[in-house]
């Protein structure tokens, strides 16, 4: 089984790009299963089902969607196996910039929107810097010079990744990405580990505290002045 984990900020074009890639995979007689993880709402799984691929939607609700997808990796792999798929494609919610959902044995694909400006690659952190493949979308909207600068900034953050320009509307670049998907190694996931630690959040807000006054805050707290302390029993 190949596992492809696709991450990227909301609206970057993950689903549109995947739709094109899946069509290329199908034309090469590969039948992936797709899982979309989101928090509140998503119609993306329906878009995948229209292509005739088995698709599953997971909503994490008030839980961190990346934690949620890690807890459910096993179920997702079983889903793909049950469908006799050679490949599991996992599209993550892409919400915060603190973690990277990739595991060591998956192919980690980061989809990033070039119209978000040339400082974005410096801001998004591990889901860019630990990716194997970076797909840049919406390059047709900006000048060639800005595209080249954006690419340069990505390579500054992740010098070993393979960068592909892709257009979610026309599908340009998706053929090349499909090649990356196909050349991913068939992994065993029994002893797989994350490439980067999951987001840090161990305080009472995590379990439902709503009061903002500082006297109620418990747990591992990090203050804006740089001091980090444990408050509580």
């Amino acid at each position, binding site marked *: 089984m190949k596992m492809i984990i696709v991450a990227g900020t909301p609206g970057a074009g993950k689903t549109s790009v995947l739709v094109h890639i899946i069509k290329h995979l199908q034309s090469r007689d590969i039948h992936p299963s797709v899982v979309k993880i989101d928090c509140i709402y998503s119609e993306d799984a329906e878009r995948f089902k229209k292509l005739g691929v088995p698709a599953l939607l997971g909503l994490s609700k008030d839980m961190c969607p990346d934690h949620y997808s890690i807890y459910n990796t096993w179920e997702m792999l079983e889903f793909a196996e049950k469908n006799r798929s050679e490949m599991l494609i996992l599209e993550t919610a892409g919400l915060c910039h603190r973690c990277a959902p990739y595991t060591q044995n998956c192919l980690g694909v980061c989809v990033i929107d070039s119209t978000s400006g040339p400082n974005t690659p410096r801001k998004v952190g591990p889901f860019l810097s630990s990716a194997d493949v970076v797909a840049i979308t919406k390059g047709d909207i900006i000048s*060639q*010079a800005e595209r*080249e600068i954006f690419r340069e900034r990505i390579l500054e953050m992740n010098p070993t990744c393979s960068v592909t320009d892709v257009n979610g509307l026309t599908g340009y*670049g998706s053929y090349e990405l499909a090649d990356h998907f196909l050349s991913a190694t068939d992994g065993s996931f029994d002893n797989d580990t994350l490439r980067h630690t999951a987001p840090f959040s161990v305080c009472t807000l995590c379990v439902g505290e709503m009061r903002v006054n500082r006297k109620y805050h418990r747990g591992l707290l990090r203050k804006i002045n740089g001091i980090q302390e444990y408050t509580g029993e």
Partner: protein
Amino acid sequence: MKTIESITIYGGLNKNGIQERVRKIELKKGDIIGIVGPTGSGKSSLVSDIEQIAQEDTNTLRKVLINHATPSLKERRDPRLKMIAQLSQNMNFIADMTVEEFLIMHSKCRNKDKRIIHDVIESANLLTGEAIQLQDNLTALSGGQSRALMVADVAIISESPIVLIDEIENAGIRKHEALDMLSGKGKIIFVVTHDPVIALTTGKRIIMKDGGMDELINTSAQESVISCDLGLIDQYMLNLRELIRTGQTIEQLELQLTNV
């Protein structure tokens, strides 16, 4: 960068999935070709196929060869090895940085000495009314200033043997000067245009229809003569434009056309 003797475009499919009528176009060093057609006819897609050196991997399934061969993936992607400079239709920058930061960063991408940024500003300011300053914010430039800076940046920093120019007549910059700046000697130049004066100064033109290359027309000797006359009309119109822009009034029409 390697010398480019020729570029060949093999036709693919039009918007209706039918083979485009022009199956092959080959251009040699020094050729200038126009790309014309109604809006939505596929001009910009053709330009983007060329920019990406498509290998039957875009919607149109066109294939582009340089010197009769497929360039390596690195030559197609790495800006330091790129053989193609493109002035797209974009009228504004979106990168949040100063003009200086932008030009320094771009000259680094293209492996150029950063001192050339002063040439870029100087050239850009020849094309636009209000001068651009190095400390200006890129996103705050006007449409004309952005366009002028894009032209100068493509001409100097992205300096390449193949140049793609998409609607240079937009945004009210000095189009003839801009075209001269972009078209050095011995380059292969593609010009997308709606402007008859520019279209007839090219050696041949591709007519686009329904997303496909529909016809290839060589500029006739007569068209070249007409092009010269049109140039006079155009110059007259541009002079009027400058007069009106600078607050002067126009007393009478002084255009004499003997040959028309």
